């Protein structure tokens, strides 16, 4: 199983029945594949609808129904469409229970950098800044390191997306909760030790007595 699937499977367990959830573009979108059948999550797409469904079958695409990545999707029973002001009102107004986003860097204060690398990549923040500020729970789903270099830092060095808003970090080797005291290592993947995680994490981790094994629902 690749890292992305491990992460998506673990994040899916964070979502509760009835939650309104916004999944970011890329890996976070994969989370929806692993939501258990008995959990109904209402997916919001920030380009203007709720009750987003899976991708349509080939030939069934509707040009007017795409997700925030511009890819064709479907809508489920109960769906509604709205404009971008309403959509971000839903987001900023605290009506989204959880958002799952990727990251370039996260630090021990829960700061997030995810939208630009000066001089290299300046795609724009899109809806990410509003999502991180507005969603009740911010879950970062990302690979633990980038080309072997830690992404979980003492302090972000890239321009921030938001200050002190991240609640949970899920990587292929661990689950970390952001608290006022710092980063608490809650779970490690099977076969991974606490020391292994600290080795590839720049920020100091708080290690509770009982660090669980990551449950990816297999």
């Amino acid at each position, binding site marked *: 199983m690749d890292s992305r699937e491990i992460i998506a499977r673990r994040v899916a367990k964070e979502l509760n029945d009835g939650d309104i959830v916004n999944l970011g573009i890329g890996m976070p979108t994969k989370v929806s594949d692993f939501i258990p059948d008995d959990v109904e999550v209402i997916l919001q*797409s*920030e*380009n*203007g*609808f709720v009750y987003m469904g899976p991708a349509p079958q080939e030939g069934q695409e*509707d*040009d*007017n*129904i*795409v997700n*925030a*990545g*511009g890819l064709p999707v479907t809508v489920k029973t109960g769906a509604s*469409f*709205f*404009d*971008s*002001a309403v*959509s*971000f*009102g839903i*987001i*900023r107004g605290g009506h989204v229970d959880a958002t799952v986003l990727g990251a370039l860097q996260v630090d021990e204060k829960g700061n997030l950098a995810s939208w630009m690398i000066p001089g290299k*990549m*300046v*795609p*724009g*923040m*899109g*809806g*990410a*800044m*509003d999502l991180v*500020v*507005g969603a009740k729970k911010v879950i970062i789903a990302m690979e633990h390191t980038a080309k072997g270099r830690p992404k979980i830092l003492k302090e972000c060095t890239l*321009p*921030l*997306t*938001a*200050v*002190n808003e991240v609640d949970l970090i899920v990587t292929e080797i661990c689950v970390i909760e952001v608290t006022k005291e710092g980063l608490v290592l809650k779970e490690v993947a099977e076969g991974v030790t606490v020391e292994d995680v600290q080795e590839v994490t720049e920020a100091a981790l708080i290690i509770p007595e009982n660090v669980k094994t990551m449950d990816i629902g297999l």
Partner: protein
Amino acid sequence: MSKIVTLEKALENVKDGMTVMIPGFMGVGTPETLVDGLIEKGVKDLFVICSDTARPERGIGKLIVDNRVKKLIASHIGTNKVTGEKMNAGEIDVTLVPQGTLAEKIRAGGAGLGGVLTPTGIGTVVEEGKQRIEVDGKQFLLELPLKADVALIRGSKVDKAGNVWYEGATRNFNPMMATAADIVIVEAEEIVEIGEIDPNNVVTPGIFVDYIVKGEK
């Protein structure tokens, strides 16, 4: 007087150097016929306000590639690498704005508000040069309204009075932009008789719309 005009007649209202709002999310909800018309007409030095610059061959992306845009406000340019190249080369002056903030700045422009207070962007580069205001112990940024000379919008169904209904996710920035420009031109996928859109289902009231141009699906 009929609001239905030819593409050429409608685009007489768009001149070099004007501020133009163009809706769309990755091209969905963008009036492609009006954008193509702008390119055909040869308008240049535009100040474009939009959510994203789509892809090089689609929607607003075409205006970027064809060097029609001098200044740009957008929330995302990553899917059209030409925008980034021109920004880095100093050919386009780009201001990036969080998407939700952009929607509210335009809404404020159309609604006669002096701005909006949002928590989005606090402590980031977005805050630079902006006023921080505390309300009930919570920090907000003052974001000022945006207005335009012209808004080019796209309706799925438009009646002859200019009432607009949008299908699916094409709505996005259309309703706000329709309120925030001196002149509003709507590209209609389908033009219908007045009354064919139930008044309860009108999203943009026709009073905002100056010209209707028949577009393609």
